[in-house]
């Protein structure tokens, strides 16, 4: 101890002098400034699979919008040619009622995409509100809100949907409600997790010591930092909603005739699997392709956003 005491005597503050050099001088930064989202975009655009997904989605969307408008046939028109194989006149053939499968596939795309996107938007609104209130409030409120979500998600998903559809009769609106009843829980959990981790970050504490109001914290810190996770979750919700819709339609719980969704078309096409396979193949192909594309985009987004990949 005495040894070290003598040492401390020797180092007095007066002995420290600024010898110049790096003191005060600032290191150079690279010339271009890159915002977070610009960097995400750059990384995303280097992901071939994700770009492929985007291309597929753009094509599917454009076709869904324009084919039913410009096609010579309507999706409900019975042309009198039954179960005809694909030809120059009917690219995807016709079905048992003599309707053009090509138009019906793109009419179905409208319904499937509409259901998928609407369900995702509803999930987004409820899930973000529920999750952020729960995470921000903390304590008892958080506990109660998350237990409610747990109970809802513990009920078998299919059971909820089937009961609802029986009560509400099959159709577009009940299908969307049915999908949203349990769908938002995943979003709520993810948003809550984000909020919990962000609200204890030092930059939020710093804003609080500056006197920030809760609204300021939400606007400037929580939303910009949780946006990435919300976007990824939403992109991955759409394909699962499309899949569920197809699956329920396949079970005969889908939109009623003469409306078409990919699921109902596949369900009907299944009956003629050997005699007219095109009636199943085309809707099934587009279900898979679209779901794959959404997943590719979602994964690409997640990779582009992942801070662990950042240097």
């Amino acid at each position, binding site marked *: 101890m005495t040894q070290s005491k003598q040492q401390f005597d020797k180092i007095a503050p007066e002995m420290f002098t600024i010898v110049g050099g790096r003191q005060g001088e600032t290191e150079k930064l690279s010339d271009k400034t*890159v915002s977070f989202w610009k960097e995400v975009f750059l990384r995303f655009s280097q992901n071939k699979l994700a770009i492929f997904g985007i291309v597929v989605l753009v094509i599917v969307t454009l076709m869904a919008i324009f084919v039913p408008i410009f096609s010579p046939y309507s999706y409900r028109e019975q042309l009198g040619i039954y179960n005809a194989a694909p030809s120059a006149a009917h690219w995807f053939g016709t079905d048992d009622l003599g309707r053009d499968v090509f138009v019906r596939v793109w009419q179905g795309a409208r319904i499937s995409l509409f259901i998928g996107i609407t369900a995702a938007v509803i999930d987004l609104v409820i899930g973000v509100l529920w999750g952020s209130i729960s995470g921000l409030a903390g304590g008892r409120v958080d506990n109660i809100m998350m237990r409610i979500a747990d109970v809802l998600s513990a009920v078998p998903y299919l059971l909820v949907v089937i009961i609802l559809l029986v009560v509400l009769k099959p159709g577009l609106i009940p299908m969307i409600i049915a999908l949203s009843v349990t769908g938002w829980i995943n979003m709520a959990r993810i948003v809550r997790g984000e909020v919990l981790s962000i609200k204890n970050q*030092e*930059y939020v504490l*710093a804003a609080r010591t500056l006197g920030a109001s809760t609204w300021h914290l939400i606007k400037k810190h929580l939303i910009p930092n949780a946006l990435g996770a919300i976007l990824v979750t939403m992109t991955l919700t759409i394909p699962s909603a499309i899949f569920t819709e197809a699956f329920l339609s396949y079970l005969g719980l889908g939109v009623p005739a003469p409306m078409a969704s990919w699921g109902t078309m596949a369900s009907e096409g299944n009956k003629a699997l050997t005699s007219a396979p095109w009636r199943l193949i085309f809707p099934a192909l587009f279900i898979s392709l679209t779901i794959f594309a959404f997943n590719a985009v979602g994964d690409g987004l997640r990779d582009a956003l992942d801070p662990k990949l950042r240097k």
Partner: protein
Amino acid sequence: MANKLLEVKNLKQYFGPANNPIKAVDGISFEIYEGETLGLVGESGCGKSTTGRSIIRLYDITDGEILFKGKNVLDTKSRKEMKEFNREMQMIFQDPYASLNPRMTAGEIISEGFNIHGLYKNKQERQARVAELLEAVGLNREHANRYAHEFSGGQRQRIGIARALSLDPSFIIADEPISALDVSIQAQVVNLLKQLQKERNLTYLFIAHDLSMVKYISDRIAVMYRGKIVELGEANEIYHHPIHPYTKSLLSAVPLPDPMTERMRERIPYTHEEPGETATIHEVKPGHLVFGTQQQINKWK
């Protein structure tokens, strides 16, 4: 002696269930005088950050009193009073990566307080103020448009310091502002803090987990152990005449500049000793306080 700027009396901060709480801060008292730097030193988890955060009202304290400029800060309830308090007291954080919002530019980070307090509404005026703050902490005014991730650790910490200065506070809590930085950069940041203190007449509570840099910046030092302050005194006094065995152990961990003596430096391990029921604060010399029972203190001496 200068005026008391901050007075902490019997501050307690417990976390968790009331029947079995984590006593992060367990009844500490100290004062900070205008213009001085009080170093708060102790091992990881002893409650230093909690102390700082309780003082600046990030946590609602369990018990005790905090007087700032003679006024009990717990009485400031209205939004207006709270904002006045925020302008007086600011904090510099430990982690230069977590303390800057990755979605904001340096300029946005530094001017965040202006938005909150409705200052410098004129754009030119605001830019000039941001530029002035950037230069005050040794950064370039062109850096205002850069995002946090473009800066190095030391530069990020400078941005954090500029943010803390933005509202012209009189008191700054620096929570281990240098422990995440390279040793070569640590000295730069400490020098910057000292220089700013002189220029702007600041008072610091400087938190650190070892004694090596603290001596250079602190006028007085408080040693914290398991939620309690076990020793407090003038920096020189603590260095030359430590009494509490925990302080001695901390001192023995400071590396020495001379390689010959450094090789012979012996670390004194500290074995936990229950403070005893009757342990209290004893003033062993004017201004030198030690926590323990009379017998313990006699033994330690």
